[in-house]
C-alpha cells in the first residue's frame, strides 16, 4: 500500500483513538493504536526502501496476500507474493535488512501487541496503569516512526 494510503488510515485511526475511553473501550482503543502504529511501520519501511508499496494486501496467514480486486461479491483471491506490507515485524520477513532505528521504533508497537492475548483475547482486567503504559508506548512508537518518515526517502516509488 502506498505511503499516502497508510497516512490516511493513520489520520482516521488517530481521530478514533482520541474519541474512545482508554479503559472503558480498551480492546478497540488499543487495537486502533496498534493498527495506526503498524501503518506507520509499513510507511517507514517503504520510505527507507526496505519494502515496496505493492498494490496487494497482506493476509493474516503470514506469507499470503490478497489481490485488490474482488473475484466475487465480498471474496478476494489469496496468493503468495513478494513481501510488501507486513502485519507485524518479521511477519512476513523482509528480504532486505531492517535498519536498527526501525526496530527501535517498533519496540513500542511490541508493547501494545503483547497486550492482545492477555487483555483483548484474554480476560485479564484493564487498569488505569495498563492503559497509560499502552498510551506511552503508542506515542513513543509514532514519534519515532514520524522521525524516520521526515528523513530523506529512499523509496524507489
Amino acid at each position, binding site marked *: 500500500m502506498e505511503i499516502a494510503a497508510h497516512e490516511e488510515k493513520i489520520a482516521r485511526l488517530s481521530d478514533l483513538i482520541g474519541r474512545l475511553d482508554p479503559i472503558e473501550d480498551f480492546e478497540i482503543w488499543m487495537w486502533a493504536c496498534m493498527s495506526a502504529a503498524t501503518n506507520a511501520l509499513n510507511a517507514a519501511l517503504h520510505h527507507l526502501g526496505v519494502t515496496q508499496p505493492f498494490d496487494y494486501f497482506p493476509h493474516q496467514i503470514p506469507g499470503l496476500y490478497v489481490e485488490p480486486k474482488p473475484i466475487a461479491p465480498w*471474496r478476494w483471491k489469496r496468493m503468495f507474493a513478494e513481501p510488501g506490507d507486513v502485519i507485524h515485524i518479521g511477519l512476513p520477513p523482509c528480504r532486505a535488512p531492517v535498519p536498527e532505528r526501525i526496530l527501535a521504533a517498533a519496540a513500542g508497537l511490541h508493547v501494545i501487541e503483547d497486550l492482545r492475548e492477555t487483555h483483548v483475547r484474554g480476560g485479564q482486567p484493564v487498569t488505569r496503569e495498563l492503559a497509560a503504559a499502552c498510551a506511552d508506548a503508542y506515542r513513543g512508537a509514532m514519534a519515532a516512526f514520524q522521525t524516520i518518515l521526515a528523513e530523506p526517502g529512499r523509496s524507489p516509488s
Partner: protein
Amino acid sequence: MTPAAHRAKAERIRRTLAKLRPSDYEMCIDGAMLAANHYVNMALHVLGIRPDDRDVIHTEFLDVIDYRRFEVAAKALVEAIEAIEELRAPFVRGAAPDGIAAGERALQQLARVEAEALRARPLAFPLLKYTPEP
C-alpha cells in the same frame, strides 16, 4: 476462558462498537472480528470441540479435525465469522474501495455470529482426541 467470560468480553467489545462512526470502518471490521472470535470460542467450548483452556485466535488456526467438526456442528456460525475475517486484508490492512460498506457488513455478520453461537448446545456424543499414527 469460560463460555460466560467469552460472552461478557464480546458484549463489552460490542458496546464500544456502538460508539464507532461508519468512517471508522477498519475498527468496525476488526472489533467485529474480536467480538466474533469470543463468540466462536464460547461455542467451541459449549459444543465440547475445544476445552475452556484452549482458545483459538482465528478458525483458520484450528486443527483441521476440529475445524471439520465445527463446520458440521455450526456451519452458519463458521460462515459468518469467516465473512468477517475475509474483510480484514482488503479493508483493514489494505485500501480497497468502499470501506464503509465493508464495515457495515462486518457488523451484520457479527449479529449472525452472536445468534448462532447462542444456539450452541453440548454435542450428544463425546469427542475423541484423535491423532492417527503416520
